[in-house]
């Protein structure tokens, strides 16, 4: 018998008033994997993450975490409660607290925790992972470059000790060498810390090279899915998402 997936979207639909952003979407995320979610602007990628984090109630279907329903039309776990269960998101556009120091931003990530000694040592490891942050430890979030803000946002998410890390377009608007650094750190986070990752990207090449499995969203539907390696050789994918 196969293990229960860590995360599962079963026939999920999600609406904003008249707009149907997701339609009958099925996604499985096995424990310990990196799963990519790619698609054009407006395809519904962020909406899928909003369904998982409980930021928006689904209109149909259900989201399951370790087999337990966390979002369905009749019942929904609150976002802040899901953080305590290890579901942590790095939102699109980073959403670093602008008038807070890097240190306080990172401490906000540890908001749900009550173990000061380990919070302090985790703060240290985030700074080791992103040394740039240590240099700017007391500067405000708004004074940072896009890449630095993304490091803060990822570091902040790690401070929560997540089991499931959701990233919404971490490469958006960031210099290519920083994107490589961030990609590298995601692999480490997954392998060393054993954190399951859902990576939403428009940078399809990056997302597919990092992930083991990829879902392609088109106008709210899963248009295509498969092991990332295979999909990279798929003609449709090559033409539409890999620019050649």
């Amino acid at each position, binding site marked *: 018998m196969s293990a229960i997936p860590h995360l599962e979207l079963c026939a999920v639909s999600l609406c904003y008033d008249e707009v149907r952003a997701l339609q009958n979407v099925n996604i499985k995320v096995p424990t310990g994997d990196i799963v990519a979610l790619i698609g054009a602007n407006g395809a519904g990628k962020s909406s899928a993450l909003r369904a998982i*984090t409980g*930021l928006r109630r689904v209109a149909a279907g259900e989201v399951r975490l370790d087999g337990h329903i966390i979002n369905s039309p009749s019942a929904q776990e*609150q*976002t*802040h409660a899901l*953080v*305590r269960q290890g579901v*942590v*998101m790095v*939102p699109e556009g980073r*959403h*670093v*607290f*602008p*008038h*807070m120091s890097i240190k*306080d931003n990172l*401490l*906000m*990530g540890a*908001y*749900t925790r009550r173990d000061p000694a380990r919070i302090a040592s985790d703060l240290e490891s985030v700074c080791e992972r992103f040394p740039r942050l240590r240099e700017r430890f007391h500067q405000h979030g708004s004074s940072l470059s896009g890449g630095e803000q993304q490091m803060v946002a990822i570091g*902040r998410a790690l401070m*929560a000790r997540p089991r499931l890390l959701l990233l919404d377009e971490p490469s958006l608007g960031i210099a290519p060498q920083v994107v490589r650094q961030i990609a590298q750190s995601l692999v480490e986070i997954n392998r060393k810390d054993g954190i399951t990752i859902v990576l939403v990207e428009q940078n399809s090449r990056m997302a597919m090279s990092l992930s083991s499995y990829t879902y392609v969203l088109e106008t709210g539907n899963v248009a295509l899915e498969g092991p990332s390696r295979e999909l990279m050789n798929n003609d449709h994918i090559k033409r539409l998402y890999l620019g050649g």
Partner: protein
Amino acid sequence: MLQVLINGIVLGSVYALIALGLTMVFSIMRVVNFAHGQMYMLGAFVVYYLYGQFQLPFWLALPLAGLALAVVGVLFNRLFFQPVLASAKREENSMLMAVGTALLLENLALTLFGEKQRGVPPVVDGSFIFGDISEGGAILTYPNAMVAALSVTAIAALLLFVQYTRPGRALRAVAQDKEAARLQGVDVKSITTLGFAIGAALAGLAGGLLVTIYGVNSGIGSNISTKAFIMIMIGGAGVTSGAIVGGVLLGFAEAIGYDLLPGSLTYLLIFVAMIVFLVFKPNGLFGKPWG
């Protein structure tokens, strides 16, 4: 001159306390609590009854005024502000609701306490004298000194709380980015309630302090609210440092005005100055919330 400076410091420190409470609520809910002055008035009445009438020690009555208003704040938030803000499609809705709560409190106070002006016996007696009063010296009464010292203490405590504690950080996070705060595991609803409670408690403390100098009547609320609006408009709504600077500036403007001008002219000039100021700096001295 020295006297004006002393008066300015005393007024400025309490005003800063009043402005901080209003700005706290604004930064978190993006709504002006029009009832802030009425909450001040209630705090003054709590001290009037507990200390002035029932003869509890002032040191007990004052924190109780803060606590009582925190409770009022929680109730107001849960009963009026959160439901209306959740369903309001337009800003006017929440503004009207806020004005309504101010009228509610004022009429409640008129019914319960009447309209008489009331005072309390002095908490401390005596004064510091600096130099020769007839030759430019100045006087600082103990009651004034106590009000200033306690205001500054309360302000310092608030700033330390907001800057260095876990709930303080959560308050700042909610003020800056609600959704990001939620994604860090913050229960935004509870933290909003906490912010409202603190804002109301600060109004209550300020009222409980100033009743020892100026007394209280049921109608002073709107007067205090107006002053509080001026202060946070000077500093920039939702900005901590702005509230403090706005409070101190208004305190000094009042102290200088009352020294030089006949009675009502001071506020006329303050209003004109503020309108001119807002034309040039519509967001106040400091731009963004919780800098």
